[in-house]
């Protein structure tokens, strides 16, 4: 076993990793937008990646860094699936709000209602075909709470 090298920056790195992880977790719990929830989960993974790299440096071997390579690959893979899935879901309900998906639950319970719902987006005209060159039409910003 390679002896641990003298690496004073470890604590700071770990701290940043842990902060990223916690921020991701809080974001995952708080953001109702599905894309953002997923990105928050990715943020957690990035915090972990930072941990790995820091530990790798501290231990003086490359195992941690190679772990990070795999980790990024898997994250990319999941991102692809996430986008495909979220797109289908958006097409079905017309919203990215994850809390509308609560049809599957104990049948004795009522659906949880949003007591302070967002205003419905103004009815949009169907998107005109893009001109051959130039900018797309102006889109209203999507509302979200948190």
């Amino acid at each position, binding site marked *: 076993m390679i002896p641990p090298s003298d690496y004073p920056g470890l604590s700071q790195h770990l701290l940043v990793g842990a902060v990223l992880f916690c921020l991701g977790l809080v974001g995952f719990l708080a953001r109702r937008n599905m894309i953002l929830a997923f990105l928050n989960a990715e943020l957690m993974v990035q915090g972990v990646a930072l941990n790995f790299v820091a530990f790798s440096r501290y231990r003086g071997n490359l195992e941690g860094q190679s772990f990070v390579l795999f980790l990024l690959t898997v994250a990319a893979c999941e991102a692809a699936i996430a986008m495909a899935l979220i797109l289908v879901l958006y097409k079905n309900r017309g919203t990215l709000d994850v809390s509308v998906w609560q049809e599957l639950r104990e049948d004795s319970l009522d659906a*949880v209602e949003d007591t302070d719902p967002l205003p419905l987006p103004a009815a949009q005209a169907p998107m005109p075909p893009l001109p051959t060159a130039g900018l797309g039409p102006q889109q209203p910003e999507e509302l979200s709470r948190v």
Partner: protein
Amino acid sequence: MFELSTETLWLLLPLIPGLPLMAAALVAIFGHRLGERSHLPVLLAVAGSAIFGFLALMHVRGMGAHQAPNAVFNYANWFEAGNLRVDWELRLDSLSAMMAAMVSFISLWIVLFSAGYMHGDPGYPRYFAAVGLFVGAMNTLVLANNLPLLFLGWEGVGVCSYLLIGFWFAKPEAAKAARKAFLVTRLGDVALLAGMILLYRAGDPVGLSYDTIFSHHYDATTLYWALVCLGIGAFGKSAQFPLHVWLPDAMEGPTPVSALIHAATMVTAGVYLLARMLPPLAGHAVTAAQLESIGAFQDLVLVSGGVTALLAALIALGQTDLKRILAYSTLSQLGYMFMALGAGTTKGNVECHSLASAAAAAAVFHLFTHAFFKALLFLSAGSVMHAMGNVLDLRRIGGLRKLLPITHICFLVGALALAGLPPFSGFFSKDGILEVLEQGAHSGGSRGGLQHAMLWLGLITAGLTGLYTMRAYLLTFWGKERIPEEAGHHAHESPAVMTIPLAVLAVPAAFIGLALGPTHLFGHFIQASPGWHAAETHAFAWKLAAVGLGAAAAGIAVALALGDRRPSRKPNGLAETARSGFFIDDVYTAFFAKPLEQFGRLLNFLDRELVDKLFELFARIPGWLGESLRPLQNGLLQYYALAMALGLVVLIAMFTLAR
């Protein structure tokens, strides 16, 4: 010589019980589709069993006296508990091969008969499924090589008996009889289980295989109590006094079932069990104390058998229902077999072994012939019943010999065999039993006197048997023709599907005793089983046979003299006593059933009002908890994520902060 390879036997032996079980499963599952064809799978499977059983029998016969000491086929481990190891293992020797072949052969013809008898019954598939299950279980019982496996078959036949007695469960008597049979035999089963436990606890190289039991030296007390427990089990199954009360009521089942289960096969399981255990144990007993134990147990068997034989014969005299007469005659004949099993001596090791083997062989021989002629008698009675619209009351039927010619001849053959007239089979086997009793009486020892008394009791019973058998025969088939109105206008002989089994069974009922008895073929064959004392050829005991024949003939003569005098309907003290089975049922009711019922009522009250309420309270708690936990699953994804995170936090707090 006919011999099968070990591999063939390995494959063939489990099929003997396996085929009927598979057929039963098939009929149970597809019964509603098979409908009136439900008998076909069972018939084919039982035919297969019979053929395989016969092949196995021929194989053992071919081995002659050189039977492998342990022709055991071990298939797999069944279970292991502590240091008890029980395997799926089958045993092939003279006794098991004979029993398997006999059971399958008789079952085959009874299944065929049933196909005609049960025709049109709505429970047709259910009936055949149960019969298939029964044949499978019975074959398991006889082929098993250890007591737990035997017990499996034992319980299996008990369940089938319950199902078939209560086959017409809408009839209250049938349901009641089924319950009674089940409960009374259960009593015996518990004793059997206790016997197994005793043997297991006393055994050193632990196991309940026959070979380990036979080769172990039990101390005398354990041996005695274990045998008594096994004996009580056998009494229950074989309806011996004092556990005989269920058998007459069992006649509520369909008649072919009475023939199969309650006359030819299942009730002989007790005889089989004791015949399986006694000779090798007697051969292995060394000390005087062990011989005494076996002797004391045999006395018990002897008395129980003797009392049953005489009592049942007396009760049979008072019965007016043909089927009940046959039921009591079964009891009486089983009593004979138990008397034979009780014959023995305590004088010396070799004598004890030799006599016990001869006695068991005699019992098994009577079991064998009895199976044929009693099945024949019951099936004939079934045929009469079929024609008479389910009436078998001797006061209402009579003079049927013209109407039912084939049934008449077959019944006559069976009756003569039962009465014990030469050359019919019953004569030789009954004579064999009297012979071993006489040997026991003469071989002296402390047990001679009792056996001498039992010999006389057997002779008296033989006379009574002749009397009631002939009387039943005469009243049914001779005298003025009486046909009850239930029969309608078309009382006629049964169809071929029912008469062919009668004719087939009549042949062995008539001649098998003559063929195997005086020639000592049967005795030599059975006593070649490993652990038994080889048979010694001796001259036919003419004197005893003549006395026995005289007794039977006297009975028959009385019956002939009585002629067509029907039992009166007026109550008459003595006859009433006999008819009611000496009030044994009433005694049981008054002394056991009623107090237990009252006690049960009390318990029921306590149970319902106190215990149930308490347990209901406890039982509500999980339901209530479950209901209160349901809001956890509210379907919101982020809520779930939060619960996971919080759960993790709680665990972290528990494991890092708490220490």
